[in-house]
């Protein structure tokens, strides 16, 4: 393929040609090209269609501010819509497609919208699709979406990975143009830890795009030389392809590094992108400036671009958008484009300068005091119509027009913490004010200094000032000789009288839309933005906001600074959600916690359930069992008949020591703990400060000054945090020390009539665990096969039961030993479902009952709140509202028709009452099928429940169409007297 618009020179590697396709057509470019530069080299100016009117568009810029050349890159799962052709690095085999067109880019049927533009003005959608409301979702929205869509998403999961990372530095320098490079050189030579980040793949900023010299070198060579020196400094880290996307508190910056976007596929194990969190002591914003266009009639045709972009394409990429160009400018910088392209052999039709006193040139014609009145060319610029100072018209033939309306400092990051930009009359633009984020300094073009000499000097001085603030004295490097042209600009925002002069090319907002918004009384810039969509979408108005503000100011008869700017928010450029997620996706979304019997349970074919981060065995299916209920029923029945084993390691374990350990627990729990004998366990209920039940568990006293507290699995962390708060803040004078030992011990429950017999086989023979020696609620230290162990005689199932703990490394061995020893008893292992069934049968409260709204009184434990002592929550549990006559009480429920379920979440109604919230009597908290009773059972909170045992009430769940009768019974379905526990 020929690259007919390729010029001589440039910073591309002609020895490395690259092939790529655009809309199915093959082209070639070179290493160092962007997709946009390569397409322009191949004489492709048309790269996209606009969002609303489907107008043909080409690149307006050569950087990340691009509104028009928005394309889809790659295919399949790696397809990425809405990327900028101007920043996409070319690689061999790149597949790119235009978007928002049908059936093709050259002939887009949706361009009919353009003909209807008189109707599709600002607020059209708001005004038109209001009525009838029911049409919105089914009719209007799908149509609008189809017409206004951007690219289409890949529907497969993203195969690439993303990392997050953290870096630290004394000085973060954002942007590696002349100011950033000099700042880095100053700080690097002073020995400061420096990070220099730039969004481009080559550092240098505008220095890579300009033809003027620095010292005796081309400015790109000078930049490359500085980068070499910096890269040899161990205290300087250079981060290319890295966009600083946000300025956050305390000198923290977000930065997105595109590690592999320039490759077809990331290298093995490598991320596609890394979202860095950079901790800086000081930061320099040297992000440069963005040139702004001028609005005139039909200023959006492919081939019309910013003059600086045209210069970048010519100088850096050796590309001209056309062999015959023109320039429209209001300042001296525009003339540079003409002279640079002229020097490269491109024909300059004319420079149209709005200033009557514009400089002249011997190389090309300058039309002074003139403006562009209109343009021609359906899919690309062919002619420009100029109105001259004397009012006469002239038509210029050209394939490209460079437009320069002046430069806007990139103040975005300076404004991320609500810093307000300040109007700078000298450059007719907003610059950073004095409200920058703490530790940030602006330098170079970002601070409104536009000459090369000025930016170099500003980089040095700003770095010295920033380093001085953190006590580092830096010497000023000698400044190389560079141009120092004064700024000559006459503000000129738009050609008046234009019918279709585009301000925001990405959102198709014209000067007329801004006028309409003003006419309809949208006076705040924020309202203007929302009403017209000016400055929305992926480019966030980087090239358009200023023009909108200027016109707004003109209409309101106010100076521009009084109109102000909209709020700047991160990210600076579009950032993939994947980068924010990092590695936290799919199976790595969160770490998992595995119990000590996990590997054994896997061997048994256990079905696991996530409980917080824990993976717990839910049940253990055996051959022939086809339904979970079969497994669970078997596990429950066999445990109550003989013996069952369950991994209960997940329960929180907190080691409480100190001479005041018992006093401390007396504060934590509402029931008394001071007199628990050594070698005994006590059940405890802890209340929140407001009197609501927080958690329950046990505390085992191993010594006068040593307890082991257990918590529920779900509340392990919350209870530990609460206890630390109480220790450190409420009772700092108590001698008590806490540490979690949840992970340190593997703990199993051994429950059922044969529990003792089984344990006696497992533990070392010197330990007597007979009922007399080791009664209900005993605890002690024993050994198993010589390994230290702890034994607790506690029961959640209601059976004769023990919990036995060994250091976690022996947990796997212990479950194998318990199961082997249990063979003669037909011992079963049971999971969380069977555990749940047995605790409901026994009437034990769990998380469902301790739901953050219930009190000890509701739980039927009102008398546990000991009034002979003070404990947390005790006083507030006496509040009137928590102690009403019709307070909820925990009861059991069984269906009148034994075939019926009693689902959790159902509500209870007194028979004969209407089914409504006003008559609600309570709700079901836990429910299961009891294989021992042969029917469903449930626990419920019922008003005055303790006085209503035997009453038949109505169970309703209107949403799931449940409405039948249940009988109120004691919550203790099995062994209500607790005899089994004590044998």
């Amino acid at each position, binding site marked *: 393929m020929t690259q007919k618009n390729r010029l001589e020179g440039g910073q591309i590697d002609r020895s490395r040609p690259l092939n790529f396709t655009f809309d199915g057509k093959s082209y070639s470019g070179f290493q160092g090209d962007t997709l946009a530069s390569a397409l322009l080299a191949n004489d492709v100016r048309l790269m996209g269609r606009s969002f609303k009117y489907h107008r043909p568009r080409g690149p307006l810029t050569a950087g990340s501010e691009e509104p028009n050349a928005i394309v889809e890159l790659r295919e399949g799962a790696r397809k990425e819509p809405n990327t900028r052709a101007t920043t996409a690095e070319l690689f061999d085999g790149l597949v790119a497609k235009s978007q928002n067109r049908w059936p093709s880019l050259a002939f887009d049927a949706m361009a009919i919208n353009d003909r209807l533009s008189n109707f599709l003005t600002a607020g059209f959608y708001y005004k038109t699709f209001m009525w009838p409301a029911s049409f919105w979702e089914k009719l209007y929205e799908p149509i609008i979406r189809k017409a206004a869509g951007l690219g289409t998403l890949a529907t497969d999961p993203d195969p690439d990975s993303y990392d997050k990372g953290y870096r630290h530095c004394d000085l973060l320098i954002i942007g590696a143009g002349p100011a950033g490079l000099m700042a880095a050189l100053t700080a690097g030579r002073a020995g400061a830890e420096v990070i220099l980040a730039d969004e481009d793949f080559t550092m240098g900023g505008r220095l890579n795009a300009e033809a003027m010299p620095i010292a005796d070198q081309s400015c790109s060579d000078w930049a490359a030389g500085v980068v070499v020196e910096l890269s040899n400094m161990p205290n300087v880290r250079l981060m290319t392809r890295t966009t600083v996307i946000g300025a956050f508190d305390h000198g923290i910056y977000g930065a997105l590094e595109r590690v592999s976007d320039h490759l077809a596929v990331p290298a093995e194990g490598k991320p596609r992108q890394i979202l860095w969190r950079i901790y800086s002591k000081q930061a320099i914003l040297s992000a440069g400036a963005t040139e702004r266009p001028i609005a005139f009639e039909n200023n959006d045709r492919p081939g019309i671009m910013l003059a600086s972009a045209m210069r970048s394409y010519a100088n850096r990429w050796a590309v001209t958008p056309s062999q015959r160009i023109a320039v429209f400018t209001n300042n001296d910088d525009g003339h540079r484009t003409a002279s640079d392209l002229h020097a490269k052999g491109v024909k300059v039709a004319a420079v149209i300068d709005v200033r009557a006193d514009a400089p002249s040139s011997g190389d090309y014609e300058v039309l002074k005091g003139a403006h562009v009145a209109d343009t021609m060319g359906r899919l690309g610029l062919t002619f420009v119509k100029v109105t001259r100072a004397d009012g006469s018209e002239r038509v210029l033939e050209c394939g490209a027009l460079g437009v320069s309306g002046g430069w806007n400092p990139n103040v975005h990051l300076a404004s991320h913490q609500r810093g307000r930009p300040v109007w700078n009359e000298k450059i007719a633009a907003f610059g950073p004010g004095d409200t920058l984020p703490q530790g940030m300094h602006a330098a170079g073009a970002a601070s409104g200094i536009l000459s090369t000499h000025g930016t170099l000097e500003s980089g040095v001085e700003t770095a010295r000032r920033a380093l001085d603030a953190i006590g580092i004295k830096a010497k000023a490097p000698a400044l190389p000789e560079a141009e120092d042209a004064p700024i000559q600009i006459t503000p000129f925002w738009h050609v008046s009288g234009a019918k279709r002069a585009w301000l925001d090319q990405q959102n198709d907002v014209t000067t007329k839309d801004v006028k309409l918004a003003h006419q309809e009384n949208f006076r705040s810039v924020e309202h203007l933005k929302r009403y017209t969509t000016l400055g929305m979408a992926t480019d966030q108005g980087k090239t358009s906001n200023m023009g909108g503000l200027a016109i707004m100011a003109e209409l309101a008869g106010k100076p521009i600074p009084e109109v102000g700017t909209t709020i700047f928010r991160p990210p600076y450029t579009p950032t993939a959600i994947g980068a924010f997620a990092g590695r936290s996706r799919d199976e790595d979304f969160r770490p998992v916690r595995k119990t000590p019997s996990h590997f054994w349970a896997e061997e048994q074919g256990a079905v696991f359930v996530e409980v917080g981060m824990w993976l717990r065995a839910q049940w253990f299916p055996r051959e022939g069992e086809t339904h979970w209920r079969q497994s669970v029923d078997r596990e429950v029945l066999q445990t109550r008949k003989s013996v069952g084993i369950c991994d209960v390691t997940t329960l929180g374990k907190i080691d409480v020591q100190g001479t005041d350990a018992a006093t401390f627990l007396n504060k934590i729990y509402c029931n008394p703990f001071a007199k628990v004998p050594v070698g005994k366990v006590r059940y405890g209920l802890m209340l929140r400060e407001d009197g609501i039940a927080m958690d329950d568990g046990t505390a085992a006293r191993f010594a006068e000054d040593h307890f082991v507290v257990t918590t529920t699995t779900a509340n392990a962390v919350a209870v530990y945090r609460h206890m630390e708060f109480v220790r450190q803040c409420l009772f700092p004078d108590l001698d008590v020390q806490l540490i979690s030992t949840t992970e340190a*011990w593997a703990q199993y429950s051994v429950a059922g009539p044969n529990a003792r017999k089984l344990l006696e086989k497992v533990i070392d023979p010197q330990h007597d665990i007979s009922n007399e020696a080791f009664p209900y609620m005993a605890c002690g230290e024993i050994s198993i096969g010589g390994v230290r162990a702890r034994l607790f005689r506690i029961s959640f199932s209601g059976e004769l039961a023990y919990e036995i703990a060994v250091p976690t490394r022996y947990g*796997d061995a212990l479950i194998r030993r318990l199961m082997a020893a249990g063979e003669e008893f037909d011992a079963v292992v049971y999971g969380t479902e069977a555990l749940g069934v047995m605790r409901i049968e026994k009437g034990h409260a769990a998380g469902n009952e301790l739901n953050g709204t219930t009190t000890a009184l509701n739980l039927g434990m009102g008398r546990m709140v000991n009034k002979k002592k003070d404990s947390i929550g005790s006083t507030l549990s006496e509040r009137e509202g928590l102690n009403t006559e019709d307070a909820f009480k925990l009861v059991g429920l069984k269906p009148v028709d034994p075939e019926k379920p009693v689902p959790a979440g159902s509500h209870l109604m007194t028979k004969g009452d209407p089914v409504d919230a006003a008559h609600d009597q309570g709700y079901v908290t836990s429910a299961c099928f009891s294989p021992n009773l042969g029917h469903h059972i449930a626990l419920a909170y019922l008003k005055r429940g303790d006085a209503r045992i035997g009453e038949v009430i109505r169970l309703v769940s209107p949403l799931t169409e449940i409405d039948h009768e249940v009988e109120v019974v004691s919550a203790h379905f099995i062994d209500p007297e607790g005899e089994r526990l004590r044998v």
Partner: protein
Amino acid sequence: MSNPLPEMIPLSALGGRAAQKHVHGPVTLTEVTHLALASVAARHGQEDACKKHLSTLLGQAAPDVEELVMNDPEAAFWIGPNQWIVGAPHDSHEDLAARLITRFGPSASITEQSDAWAVFDLQGDALPVMELLCPIDMRTLTVGRARRTTIDHLGCFVTRRGEDHLRILGPRSSAGSLHHALLTAMRAAH
């Protein structure tokens, strides 16, 4: 008596009989299984006595904030005000907590922590790996420093034992996840 019961064979945090080791480019990740650990927390009014015991044990001053003191056979690092973790070889000090209780007497609360942690050694060029894992500024984590941080959502300690030797302690139940995160970062960084 039927068949003898299975022996009480310990497993590593990753669930194996032997420690796992992975080499990737310039970094090596090794599971550390030979450590006995115990926490030492000074009791009220006993802070000086406790520190004295600790310093006798370590042959030098008790570790201050963020410090790690390496000694043979015991080492210790600071984990909170008047609170430390002491480590020693498991083979010789399986009963570390009991020994410390005897040594410290009423001056400290001692809790066995041997199996509360999964421990990994990261050796070699670890900085590019660590900066993908945690917000610690590795240049300030000099040899003899210990810091608490978050790795892969998990609360961990990172201690620097040598220029090229980091030791990472994380919650044992998440050993697999932590190991996976470390390996993934090694492959991404090198």
